[in-house]
């Protein structure tokens, strides 16, 4: 049984650059049916020209899929951006904290009520604690009323060493999960190319009440339980 102290973890070593696949190849992908994606797809069936925000790592597949449907897609890897040490400022206790004002001044800068859909994936589970609520609030501001957010949250069964995945949209109801292994000790990775698959360590586990509190400004929340350690949440702005 997990202790309560593990439910909300402070920011430890949140990220490191992963080895990617063997021999430098991209890691393999596993298909997963997504009820949340299925419902989101159903809501937007037949529509074109929607504005969609993808908060995950750059996914050529997601870009191709969304633009192929006639939508405009925006990409912003907030997790990767959060790693930038220039966001840090001195804290009162002598440590360092993220300057959320400065972070939001240069990230997620869009017009109000701009997006029809936002793919959060599991970013809130991995973001530095200081950024979670401000980013959720910013998403609220830039999403249209009745716009949809799709989020994935790990369940209690996911331990601190739960694998980190990148998510790619397969079709209207299928996600491809690409597992990113942590780097081997002492491994130095290239700055770009297939070797640059960043690995992140799970920072926290949200229960349903925490999720409801996090998105309390939004209109409604729908939960979908999966067979794996991931809970899908479809949120209406």
């Amino acid at each position, binding site marked *: 049984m997990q202790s309560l102290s593990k439910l909300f973890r402070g920011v430890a070593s949140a990220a490191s650059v992963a080895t990617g696949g063997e021999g430098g190849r991209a890691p393999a992908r596993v298909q997963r049916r997504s009820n949340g994606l299925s419902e989101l797809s159903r809501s937007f069936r037949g529509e074109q020209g929607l504005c969609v925000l993808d908060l995950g790592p750059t996914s050529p597949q997601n870009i191709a899929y969304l633009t192929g449907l006639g939508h405009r897609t*925006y990409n912003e890897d907030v997790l990767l951006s959060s790693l930038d040490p220039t966001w840090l400022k001195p804290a009162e206790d002598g440590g360092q904290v993220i300057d959320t004002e400065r972070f939001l001044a240069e990230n997620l800068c869009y017009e109000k009520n701009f997006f029809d859909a936002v793919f959060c994936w599991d970013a809130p589970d991995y973001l530095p604690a200081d950024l979670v609520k401000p980013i959720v609030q910013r998403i609220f501001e830039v999403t249209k009323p009745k716009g949809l957010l799709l989020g994935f949250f790990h369940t209690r069964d996911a331990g601190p060493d739960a694998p980190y995945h990148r998510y790619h949209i397969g079709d209207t109801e299928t996600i491809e999960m690409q597992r990113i292994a942590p780097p081997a000790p002492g491994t130095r990775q290239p700055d770009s190319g297939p070797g640059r698959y960043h690995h992140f360590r799970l920072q926290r586990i949200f229960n349903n009440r925490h999720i409801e509190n996090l998105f309390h400004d939004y209109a409604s929340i729908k939960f979908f339980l999966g067979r794996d350690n991931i809970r899908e949440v479809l949120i209406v702005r």
Partner: protein
Amino acid sequence: MPVNTPIPGVRTETAHIGKSVLVRGELSGSEDLYVDGEVEGSIELQGNSLTIGPNGRVRASIHAREVVIHGRVAGNIRAVEKVELRKSANVVGDLATQRIAIEDGAYFKGGVDLQKQAAPAPPAPVVREPIADPVPETKPAAAAAGQSTIFEAGK
């Protein structure tokens, strides 16, 4: 600043900006361009292709027929035909083009707006009013000017 003016009858070659070169200002030309250095400002290559090499660092708005990126670009990119981000690309800015190809490993932050090329508008029919006779003499109405064909990249 024009890069090179092609000489009629001579096969166009690709202009090259080496990795130690820094260019500030408006860069325009009528030939293909390979940038492996630093450019700040704007790059205008309307009918030609632009390649940003792996050492290229561009902080500029870009307008070209085709853009292939191996290096770093900060700026909006407008390509009539296509944009390619290779695996070492690091691009921050909005892309407007007909086709896009992104290799796994590339980093991209910004918006993608795929624009289908619109069919050319048919020329408007010329309308002539009959000349009134006999007198008074009236000048025929001016014929409606035919519209020039405009290709619009957009929805």
